[in-house]
């Protein structure tokens, strides 16, 4: 068992149960049982098509964000629910549709959509290859609380509004950078945390949803905001989150975020990112690192994307972290 200590790559309470699994087979009855349980579904009906029946379901990630792919040679219909999760999905082969309160929507090849949330959803798929990104509801709602002032409960996504090409390109861009980190065995916990958060942010940016009801958020008192800022800075080497600071100080996350906005003109996570960048800069200077070594150090501190790291470092300090002048 490796002993990695409590530094930027340490395990801690923030580590979530991670696993990669593939479930596959050619038996119709077993497929029905497996999928029905996986999707908390009812009345799954599976019939064969002109292709030999087979299925393969692959998942990797943790309980907060997981990336999945599903191959199904056959026709399947029924209904399911995703309590406690927001699920983005698209198909790359075959055909499929969902039906919920607002009617039936046919999936368009390679165009992501959000599963209906909080209601039983009918579905019909045939000979399809499907990709899915599952995001735990409490995780997404905490990010929404921080960046949008969301104050709990289900986020009111508008399923009638489909993301445009630009929004989908941005979603794909984030996924292309973040998903490999989420599924990687050797990613540091800070990198994984950042990648998961970026997926949550991308989901919020991609899929239209109503602003939080209830009027302006009351900001946390400045003293509390400064306490939280100190806490985040002191624990920046750990996978601490703004929600941890809010919980420790007994302040609603949305209020804390509003307080940060007024005090620092930034989100708590931006403050945390800045603290980590300062730790990176110190280490780069002390160790005289440059080039790929500095990029690797950035990854250990959660800056898993090289361009994103260089941009953030440059914005903070006006220099390229890869160069020692």
């Amino acid at each position: 068992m490796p002993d990695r200590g409590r530094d930027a790559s340490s395990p801690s309470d923030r580590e979530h149960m991670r696993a990669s699994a593939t479930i596959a087979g050619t038996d119709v009855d077993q497929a029905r049982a497996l999928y029905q349980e996986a999707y908390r579904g009812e009345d799954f009906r599976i019939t064969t098509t002109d292709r030999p029946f087979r299925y393969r379901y692959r998942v990797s990630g943790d309980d907060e964000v997981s990336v999945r792919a599903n191959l199904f040679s056959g026709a399947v219909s029924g209904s399911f629910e995703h309590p406690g999760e927001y699920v983005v999905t698209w198909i790359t082969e075959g055909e499929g549709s969902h039906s919920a309160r607002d009617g039936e929507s046919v999936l368009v090849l390679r165009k992501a959509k959000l599963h209906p949330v909080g209601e039983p959803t009918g579905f019909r798929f045939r000979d399809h290859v499907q990709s899915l990104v599952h995001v735990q509801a409490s995780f997404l709602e905490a990010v929404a609380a921080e960046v949008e002032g969301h104050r709990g409960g289900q986020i009111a996504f508008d399923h009638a509004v489909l993301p445009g090409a630009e929004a989908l390109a941005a979603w794909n861009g984030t996924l292309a950078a973040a998903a490999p980190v989420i599924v990687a065995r050797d990613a540091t916990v800070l990198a994984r945390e950042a990648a998961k958060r970026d997926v949550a942010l991308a989901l919020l940016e991609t899929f239209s949803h109503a602003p939080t009801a209830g009027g302006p958020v009351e900001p946390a008192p400045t003293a509390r905001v400064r306490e939280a800022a100190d806490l985040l800075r002191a624990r920046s080497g750990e996978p601490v989150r703004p929600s941890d600071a809010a919980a420790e100080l007994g302040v609603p996350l949305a209020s804390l975020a509003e307080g940060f906005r007024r005090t620092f003109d930034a989100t708590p996570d931006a403050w945390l990112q800045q603290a980590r960048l300062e730790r990176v800069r110190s280490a780069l200077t002390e160790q005289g690192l440059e080039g790929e070594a500095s990029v690797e150090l950035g990854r250990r501190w959660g800056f898993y994307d090289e361009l994103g790291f260089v941009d953030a470092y440059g914005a903070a300090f006006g220099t390229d972290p890869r160069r020692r002048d």
Partner: protein
Amino acid sequence: MHLPDVARRTPPTETASDASCPDLFDLLDVVPTAAVFACDGVCDDYEGALSLFEDRIELGCGTPRSIAFVDVEAWWATVVGAAVTVTVLARGAHSTTLPAAYRAALLVALVAQLGPERVRA
């Protein structure tokens, strides 16, 4: 000091170019897997499962029809500590959203990681 309004680690404008969503099998199929496990349902033979798991051969529950490849990282043990129970699994969304064979595979993996005496079903 410049702080972005909303911090991101990757700039979408730099990496986004295509509105056509990818097939995630292309990503997932390159993730290495550590063990092979097969089960027709929930496995209750943890001792037997452990030895078979360690040998990385298919676990015989009749004719294997469903195969799960399970990869469990070493730090699980440090995370969950000595007082592990199966309820640890039940707290994760995985345990409620994935099929029984997967949950069984996770349990087997946990047993393999911690030793059967530290896991109470």
